[in-house]
């Protein structure tokens, strides 16, 4: 049987100072802070993970909050937006609650027959809410999709369809913007990827408010090794497996320039914390534990919305 990617595992983005970011995602968007740790390559910076109450794959948005990050902007070769799935019947309620708090949004616009509204996080990153027919008690049911901005969508589309098993489910052109919709088979969260091409000239710049990489799911470590082999033989060599504490990761850059990761579902965010208390303590990988005092001194204190 040919292996297929079920959908997104997580999306990692860059933000400015962490407190505003935390207030927005835990307060405004009612996500749970499921892990508070540090950037493993730069332990003086937080790495914050938001998701559903269990920290399930396909719901996880992570941030590197660099206090001095300059503003970035999306452009070709970058992931340009992430979209949350609004469960059935919840869309109008979201509009009302945003209005009550005087938070602007743009929309709804229609995309492939679904209503979409776009708001901005504190760093100006577009956060899309897509009306879906999914039943859920949660205010947002994880990711619906990400948008990849490409100067040429064909090579990326080939990778996603021929290697990852995505299928084309739509194609729209409006106002100089072309959008090809690809969908992973099955009903996992974050199964949709939109490849977007725009006539508007734009040069992207990594910075606050931009997406650093997107991660796809591998259900097990063995499956991840399969992907590694398959990608290498298709001419997309990946990094070796890197231990990210809550998942194992391999990375490669897709032909259009977006950094792709394949992350394993296990061990998950409950590996070092009780599921009832995810995100409450500052968790450090073993190699940084001896420096906890120093790390805690440089990290700004954070207040989670209740």
């Amino acid at each position: 049987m040919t292996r297929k990617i079920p959908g997104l595992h997580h999306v990692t983005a860059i933000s400015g100072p962490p407190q505003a970011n935390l207030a927005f995602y835990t307060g405004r968007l009612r996500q749970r802070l499921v892990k508070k740790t540090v950037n493993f390559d730069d332990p003086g910076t937080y790495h914050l993970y938001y998701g559903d109450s269990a920290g399930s794959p396909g719901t996880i948005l992570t941030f590197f909050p660099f206090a001095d990050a300059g503003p970035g902007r999306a452009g070709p070769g970058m992931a340009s937006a992430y979209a949350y799935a609004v469960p059935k019947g919840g869309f109008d309620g979201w509009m009302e609650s945003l209005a009550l708090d005087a938070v602007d949004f743009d929309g709804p616009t229609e995309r492939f027959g679904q209503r979409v509204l776009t708001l901005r996080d504190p760093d100006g990153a577009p956060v899309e809410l897509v009306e879906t027919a999914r039943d859920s008690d949660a205010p947002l049911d994880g990711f619906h999709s990400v948008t990849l901005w490409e100067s040429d969508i064909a090579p990326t589309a080939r990778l996603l369809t021929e290697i990852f098993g995505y299928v084309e489910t739509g194609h729209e052109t409006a106002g100089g913007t072309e959008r090809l919709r690809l969908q992973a088979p099955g009903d996992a969260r974050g199964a949709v990827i939109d490849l977007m091409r725009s006539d508007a000239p734009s040069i992207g710049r990594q910075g606050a408010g931009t997406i650093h990489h997107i991660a796809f799911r591998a259900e097990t470590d063995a499956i991840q090794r399969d992907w590694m082999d398959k990608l290498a033989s298709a001419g997309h060599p990946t990094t070796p497996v890197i231990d990210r504490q809550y998942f194992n990761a391999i990375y490669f850059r897709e032909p259009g320039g977006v950094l792709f990761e394949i992350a394993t579902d296990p061990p998950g965010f409950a590996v070092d914390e009780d599921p009832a208390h995810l995100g409450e303590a500052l968790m450090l990988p073993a190699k940084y534990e001896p420096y906890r005092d120093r790390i805690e001194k440089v990290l700004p204190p954070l207040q989670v919305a209740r």
Partner: protein
Amino acid sequence: MTRVLRAGASPDTARMGLVLLHGRGAGAEDILGLGAALGLPDIALVAPEAPGRSWWPTSFLAPMGGMAPHVDAGLAAVDEAIATLLTAGLTPDRIALAGFSQGGCLALEYAARRGGLAAVFGLSAGLVGTSDAMGGPDAALYGAMPKRFAYDTDLTGLPVTITVHTQDPHIPLKRAEDSATVFRDRGALVDLQVTQGAGHSVTEGGIRAMRAILNKG
């Protein structure tokens, strides 16, 4: 100090200048995207950014006591942005003002209070008002108190575009309609575009109106 971004034609050779005001939570880059979408390369674009990406912290329907200092600061930011176009040699009759949502409310308010513009576009917007009016909470204003619109500017011939959805969660239809009336009473040429249904966005009709009016300028 407000961050100000520029795009489009150089102001000293531009046919017109356009000051663009972003909505709450968005930034100068976002609203410059609207300017780019117009496809008018001979217009100089200037977009000031509100501190904290917000021109005011509440709904624009909130009582004037809380709104006034924020509105004053916003008007001053627009003054500054317009000044950069004036010093480059553009005259007020060649400077237009546009905004979305909060930015649209600020644009309309600026035009009503200061006058002397080529055109104003309030996309999903309405006037803030000059002071609180008599009367209690009004369901047509989503439970907010009414405002007075005491302007003494001469707006004869000013093209004013106001867009709104019938069920815009931020902008009560009544406020958009009242704003249109206020501008009409002062001699402005008002185009009020009402889109059916629930929504809050820059509409195709709004962009078309901007293109048509700015092309004539």
